């Protein structure tokens, strides 16, 4: 009976999420590009063979992974600190809460342009400061070794407030009693953080990790605007590569292959990161 009731919703979800996925999988086994006049022609897994031998795909995977790993960990760390601060009672807290949300509310392209300007050499504020101190120019966006760090910074700046908000919501579900009881048991504030706060925030942290990993793996506009994937392709993400293949090269077959390929990678790495988090938790925890 209940199964029958949720059937329409389930069908809708399958239709909305399943259809494109199936379409992409199907396309990934076809050549469909300007060369074929955009007509899909089955090519027996040639796309997949190409993907596996495509250095650029693996390089972009590596770049996407390190981008996601570093941004998500930094974001969690900073967001937890912000959430803890905002969970305290102090004057002007509400104002600060609202202000911290601003980066999240800003459109990514706008803020990416902002970061591009901030890192601009020689007119951006960072270079101006560096100049004042008397150091050499940074050229952070012009160096393949550092440009990706700048994009991480942009991402952290933008999405930390969002995670902070999730964690803050989580913090507010922890009854004050628990901290008081823990204090009376002889625990310090620091111990409370590791033995109560973080374990109790676990579902919220997991949610943030999952959500943010998926988002960070699909990073597109931030990088497109800040570096365009350069210099030397060092900041190119999988999403940009897939986009290039579809919209610039009109190679829809291979673009679908990249998308499905990265989708598989995302699923595996999400599972892996949750496994890692649980492992870390168990070292800390008392749960049995």
């Amino acid at each position: 009976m209940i199964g029958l009731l949720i059937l329409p919703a389930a069908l809708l979800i399958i239709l909305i999420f399943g259809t494109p996925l199936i379409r992409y999988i199907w396309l990934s086994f076809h050549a469909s590009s300007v060369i074929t006049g955009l007509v899909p022609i089955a090519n027996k897994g040639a796309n997949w063979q190409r993907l596996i031998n495509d250095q650029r795909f693996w390089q972009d995977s590596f770049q996407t992974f390190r981008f996601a790993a570093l941004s998500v960990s930094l974001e969690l760390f900073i967001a937890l600190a912000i959430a803890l601060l905002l969970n305290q009672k102090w004057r002007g807290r509400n104002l600060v809460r609202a202000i911290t949300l601003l980066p999240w509310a800003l459109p990514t392209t706008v803020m990416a342009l902002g970061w591009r300007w901030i890192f601009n050499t020689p007119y951006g504020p960072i270079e101006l400061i560096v100049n004042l101190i008397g150091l050499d120019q940074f050229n952070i966006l012009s160096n393949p070794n550092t440009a990706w760090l700048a994009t991480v910074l942009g991402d952290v700046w933008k999405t930390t407030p969002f995670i902070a908000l999730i964690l803050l919501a989580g913090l507010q579900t922890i009854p004050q009693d628990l901290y008081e009881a823990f204090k009376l048991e002889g625990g310090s504030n620091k111990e409370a953080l590791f033995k109560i706060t973080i374990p109790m925030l676990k579902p919220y942290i997991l949610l943030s990790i999952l959500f943010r990993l998926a988002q960070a793996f699909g990073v597109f506009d931030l990088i497109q605007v800040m570096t365009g994937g350069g210099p030397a392709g060092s900041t190119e993400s999988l999403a940009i590569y897939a986009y290039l293949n579809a919209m610039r090269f009109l190679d829809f077959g291979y673009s679908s292959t990249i998308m499905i390929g990265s989708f598989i990678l995302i699923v595996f790495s999400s599972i892996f990161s949750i496994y890692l988090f649980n492992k870390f938790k168990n070292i800390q925890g008392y749960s049995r």
Partner: protein
Amino acid sequence: MTLILKNIGRRYGKSWVLRNLFLEIKDGECLALLGPSGCGKSTTLRLIAGLDIPDEGSIYINGRDLKNVSPSKRNIGMVFQSYALFPHLSIASNLTIGLKVRGATESEQHQKVSSILTLMKLEDLAYRKPAQLSGGQRQRVALARALLRDPEVYLLDEPMSNLDAQLRESLRPEIRSLILQGQKPVVYVTHDQQEAMAMANKIAVMQKGNVEQIGTPNELYNSPASIFVASFIGRPQINLLPPESGIIKGIRPEDIIINENGINSKIIYQEWLGSSKLIMLDTPIGELRMITSSNDQIPECPKISWDIKNEHRFELTTHKRLN
């Protein structure tokens, strides 16, 4: 060993929630703080625990001034109204965590936790999470945690308010014996006068941040110091007569008797309470409550009176006791 509160005051902004509070609780003594919500009883408890800081006065345990002593150093066992069990930890871990942060060795932890689990009959629940326990079981865990601390003072904040009435009554003697067994001062906060009388050997009745009266349950019942105490203690409530030359008289329902020479009255309704019954009477001096044995046959319009000895007299303006 004694817990002493000397001239304690606490205010939020300009309004005092607690003022001029003096309390002394000796070893093996259980003091109940009784009063309606907002009377300052929970604040008092939090001040003792160090979870809140008084604006005035000092608190001593065995002569040690607790000023600037953090809650974690006060050596206090507290049972919270919500029980405050750590939901992410098993029952055993809930009990161990305190020992761990206080630096007990592993064998010590193990030995103490298993003995308290046995004492509290919680062995079978050791590896369950709090959410899998019933209210009564959770309450036992909370109590076990306080006992395990081997504290200098026990604080219990409405420990039974989340339990149903039947369970509450059946748990009273058990809890009472457990906490008094430690021979430590116990402070027990409740808004239930019956519970206070059952659990405590001394009761402080509080109202609006002041202690109205401290005494044994007997003293509070038989010679309430104010109209507030008289009405708060004893069910059904005391009858208050209309003021007469600056005096308000109070007569407890069980002190009203049938007397041919008494005043006229008429029964409005009756309530059976089991062995006794409550009768509501309409009289020339207002409505009066009366308690009699359920077996007594009371006429429709009884004449009633009371022994003058049983009159409680209060001053009209101050509401203080006169006799």
